[in-house]
C-alpha cells in the first residue's frame, strides 16, 4: 500500500464513531491529568489500562495515546497560571509563562502554548508517517557514548537557563547533580545519600522536586506578600495571542517542532530534555535574551511546541521497532502485549489498522485538543481572579494529593515540602531553580552514559572522539563553552551576563 492509501485507510479506522469517542475521551482525560499537578500520564494510563480490556485494542491504544499527548497540552496550564508544572516537561514553561501571567498576559501565554502544541504535534505526526522506519533505525545508532555527548551538550545549555548570576546558576547546577545522584548507584550497587531510608533507594522523584521548588515555594512567597498583593489586578490584556505575539513565536514554534521530534525519537526522556533545549536555543538566538525570564513569549512557544512534538517522535521506536522511548511508551507496549499484539518490527505489517489508525487518530486528537483548549483559556484566566486566601490553600491541597497519588508514598510528600522550603529560600536569596532541575535530570544520565561507555571501551576515553556522532557532539559542546572567547560571540555573552 502506498502512503496516501495508508493514510486514507488510517482515517477510515480512526473516524469510526467508537474510535472518535475514545479519542475524545483520551484527550479529555489527558488534559485533565495534565492540569492536575502530580499525577502524570504514566499513572493515569496504567490505572486505566485494566478498564480497556473490554474494548477493541485499536480503540484502547487510541485512547491511551490521547491521554499522553493530551497531558502534554494540559501540563502548561498550571505552569502559566500558578507556577506549578502540571507535569515534568512543563517545568521550563514556568519561567516565562508565569511571568506573562503576572503581567496580565495569561491568555496569550495559554493560547500560544495551545497553538504551539497543536503545530508541534501535527508536524511530528507528518514526520512519523513519512520517515518512521529509517529514523528508528538511526536512533539505534545512539549508544552510550552518543548519549554522553548529547548530555554534555545539554549541560552547556545550563547557562541559558539562568537569568541572573552565572556563578549562582552553576552552584545550583552542582546542587542539582547531588540531588540527582541520590539512590542506589546502578553500576556499583552502592547506596548514595540515602541515609538508610529505603524510599530514597530510587532517588528523589522529579515530581515532588519540581512541585516543591516551583509550586510550594511560590505559595510560601505569596503568603508572605499577601498584604501588598496587586500583581494580578492588572487588567487581563486579551485572551488570544496578538499579531505581534505570533510574529515573535513563529520561529520558536518551527524550531521547537523539529527539535522535539528528533529528541523524542531517542530513548530516554525526550520530551523533558527537548523543552529545556528549546528554551536554551531560543534564548541563544534571540535578539533580546535579557527578556527571557521576564515574560518572553518565545520562552513559552518554543518549549511547549517541543514537548508536544517529542510525543509524536516517541511513538516511532515503539511502533516500528517495539522499543519504548520512555516510560509512557513502555506502558503502551505492555498494553499491546495484553491485547495479544506483537509489539515490534512486525507490528506495522501485521496490524496496519493499529498503526495507521492510531497515527491518524492523533491528527484528529490534536484538532480536538485545540478546540477543547481554546475556549478553556477564558475559564482558566478566571482562576487568577480567585482571592489568594482561597486559591493558595487549594493549590497546596492539590499538590499534596497529587504527589501522594503517584506512589502512595508519604516520603514523596515530605520531599516535596522540603523542596518547597528550599525553593523558598532560594528565591529569597535569588538562586534559580531551573539550572538545578536541568542538572538534576541530566546529571544521572550523564554519569550512567559515561560509565557505560567506559565499560564498553575498557576505560579508554578515546571512545568519545572516535565515534562520529559522539565526537561531533563533544566538539560542538567544547565550541559552545569556548565561544565567549571568540570576539564576535563575546558581545552576546556579555549581554547575557548583564541581565537584570
Amino acid at each position, binding site marked *: 500500500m502506498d502512503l496516501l492509501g495508508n493514510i486514507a485507510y488510517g482515517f477510515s479506522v480512526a473516524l469510526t464513531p467508537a474510535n472518535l469517542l475514545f479519542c475524545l475521551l483520551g484527550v479529555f482525560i489527558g488534559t485533565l491529568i495534565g492540569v492536575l499537578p502530580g499525577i502524570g500520564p*504514566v*499513572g493515569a*494510563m*496504567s*490505572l486505566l*489500562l*485494566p478498564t480497556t480490556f473490554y474494548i477493541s485494542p485499536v480503540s484502547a491504544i487510541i485512547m491511551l495515546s490521547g491521554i499522553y499527548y493530551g497531558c502534554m497540552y494540559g501540563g502548561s496550564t498550571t505552569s502559566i497560571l500558578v507556577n506549578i508544572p502540571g507535569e515534568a516537561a512543563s517545568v521550563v514553561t514556568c519561567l516565562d509563562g508565569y511571568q506573562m501571567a503576572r503581567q496580565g498576559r495569561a491568555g496569550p501565554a495559554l493560547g500560544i502554548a495551545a497553538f504551539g502544541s497543536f503545530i508541534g504535534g501535527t508536524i511530528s505526526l507528518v514526520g512519523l508517517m513519512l520517515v518512521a522506519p529509517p529514523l528508528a533505525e538511526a536512533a*539505534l*545508532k*545512539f*549508544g*552510550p557514548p552518543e548519549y554522553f555527548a548529547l548530555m554534555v551538550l545539554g549541560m552547556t545549555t545550563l547557562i541559558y537557563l539562568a537569568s541572573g548570576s552565572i556563578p549562582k546558576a552553576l552552584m545550583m547546577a552542582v546542587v542539582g547533580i547531588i540531588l540527582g545522584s541520590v539512590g*542506589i548507584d*546502578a*553500576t*556499583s*550497587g*552502592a*547506596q548514595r545519600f540515602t541515609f*538508610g531510608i*529505603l*524510599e530514597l*533507594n*530510587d532517588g528523589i522523584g522529579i515530581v515532588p522536586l519540581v512541585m516543591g521548588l516551583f509550586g510550594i515555594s511560590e505559595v510560601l512567597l505569596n503568603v508572605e506578600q499577601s498584604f501588598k498583593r496587586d500583581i494580578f489586578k492588572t487588567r487581563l490584556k486579551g485572551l488570544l495571542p496578538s499579531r505581534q505575539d505570533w510574529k515573535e513565536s513563529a520561529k520558536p514554534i518551527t524550531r521547537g517542532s523539529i527539535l522535539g521530534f528528533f529528541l523524542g525519537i531517542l*530513548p*530516554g526522556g525526550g520530551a523533558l530534555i527537548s523543552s529545556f533545549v528549546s528554551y536554551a536555543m531560543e534564548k541563544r538566538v534571540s535578539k533580546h535574551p535579557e527578556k527571557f525570564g521576564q515574560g518572553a513569549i518565545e520562552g513559552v512557544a518554543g518549549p511547549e511546541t517541543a514537548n508536544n512534538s517529542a510525543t509524536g517522535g516517541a511513538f516511532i*521506536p515503539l511502533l516500528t*521497532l*517495539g*522499543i*519504548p522511548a520512555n516510560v509512557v511508551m*513502555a*506502558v503502551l507496549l*505492555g*498494553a499491546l*502485549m*495484553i*491485547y*495479544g499484539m*506483537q*509489539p*515490534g*518490527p*512486525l507490528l506495522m505489517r501485521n496490524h496496519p489498522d493499529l498503526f495507521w489508525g492510531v497515527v491518524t487518530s492523533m491528527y484528529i486528537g490534536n484538532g480536538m485538543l485545540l478546540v477543547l483548549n481554546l475556549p478553556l483559556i477564558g475559564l482558566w484566566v478566571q482562576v487568577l481572579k480567585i482571592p489568594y486566601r482561597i486559591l493558595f490553600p487549594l493549590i497546596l491541597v492539590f499538590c499534596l494529593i497529587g504527589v501522594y497519588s503517584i*506512589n*502512595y*508514598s508519604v516520603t514523596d510528600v515530605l520531599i516535596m515540602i522540603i523542596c518547597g522550603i528550599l525553593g523558598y529560600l532560594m528565591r529569597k536569596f535569588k538562586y534559580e531553580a531551573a539550572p538545578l532541575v536541568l542538572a538534576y535530570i541530566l546529571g544521572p544520565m550523564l554519569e*550512567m552514559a559515561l*560509565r*557505560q561507555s567506559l*565499560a*564498553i571501551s*575498557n576505560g579508554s576515553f578515546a571512545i568519545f572522539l572516535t565515534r562520529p556522532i559522539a565526537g561531533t557532539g563533544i566538539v560542538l559542546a567544547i565550541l559552545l563553552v569556548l565561544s565567549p572567547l571568540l570576539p564576535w560571540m563575546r558581545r552576546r555573552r556579555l549581554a547575557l551576563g548583564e541581565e537584570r
Partner: protein
Amino acid sequence: MKNRFFLALLLTIVLVVGSTILARADYPERPITLIVNYSAGGGTDMCARAVAKRAEKILGQPIIVVNKPGAGGTIGVGAVAAAKPDGYTIGVLTYTPLAIAPHVYDVPYNPLKDFEYIMGYAKYLYGTSVRSDSPFKTLKDLVQYAEANPGKIKYGVQGLSIPNHFAMVYLSKMAGIKIEPVVFKNTMEEVAACLGGHIDVTNQDPPAVVPHIQAGKLRLLASFSDIRWKWVPDVPTVKEMGYNFYVESWAGLGAPKGVPKPILDKLRDAFRKSADSEEFLEIIDRIRLIAEYRTPEQFKNLVQVGYKENEAMVLELGLHKSQKK
C-alpha cells in the same frame, strides 16, 4: 458475687471467641487490598491483576490493587509485612526482594519470618541473546571467543544483584571465561543498546526480547532457566549444554505473619483456583510469563533455598551489605 464475676467473664469469653469464629466464617466481609510491589502496567502488575480478578469472584468481595513500587520491589513487600494480619491486606511477593535484596541492603522485613505464603503462581524466564548478525551462532561460539579474548565481550544487565546478572556470573565461572557487565537503567535501554550493536549480549526476559527474536533482529543463544523458552523451542538451556546451573525468579502471593488459619485457608483456596483459571492463563501467556502453581509450602521453600544460595553469591561478588561499610 464471685460466681457472678466468673459468669460475666465466661460470657465475655464466649462472646469474644464466638464473634471471631463467626467473623472468620464470614470472611471476607469487606474488600481486600492487594499490594503490588511494582508499577502499574508492568508484567508483574498485569499478572497480579489477572489473578485477582478471578479470585474476587470466588471470594465474593472486590480486590483492590494498590501499587507500591520502588527500591527493587522491596517497598511493596515491606508494606505487606507491616500490614494488619487480618486477611484484608495481602500482597505480591516476588523472588528478588525476598531472596536477594535482603543481602544487598537493609529491608524492613525478614523474608523467612514475616510472611504467610499463599502461593507461587508465575515464573519469569531468563536467557541470553545476541544481534542476529553477530558471529556467535551458539553459546559455544560465544564461550570460545571469550576464552581467546578475555574481557572483550560486554553484556548488558539492568542492575546488579538480580537473576539476569547472577546467570552471567555463573556462566563465566563455569566456563572459565572473563566477560564484562555494562549496567543499564532499564530493560528497554539495554535491549536498544544490543539492537544497536553497542553491547554484544543482552540477558533479558521473553517479554523484552521474543518480539525481536521473531522479527529476526535478535538470536537467543541459551535459556538460563530450567526449561527452554516455549517461543523459541529449538534453543537449549545452559544445563543441556553442560553448564550445571539455572536461575529462577517467581511471583507469588503472601500475607503478613499471623493471619488466622481459617482465613488463610480461604485465601489459599480461592487463589489456587484463580491461578488455574482460563482467564488468568490467557493473560499470563500474552505477557510471556510462565504460569506454574506452587503450594504455600513449595513457595516458601523456594524462597528459603534461594535466600541461602544467593547470600553466598552476593558475598562472593562483594555486593553484600556487610561489605559496603
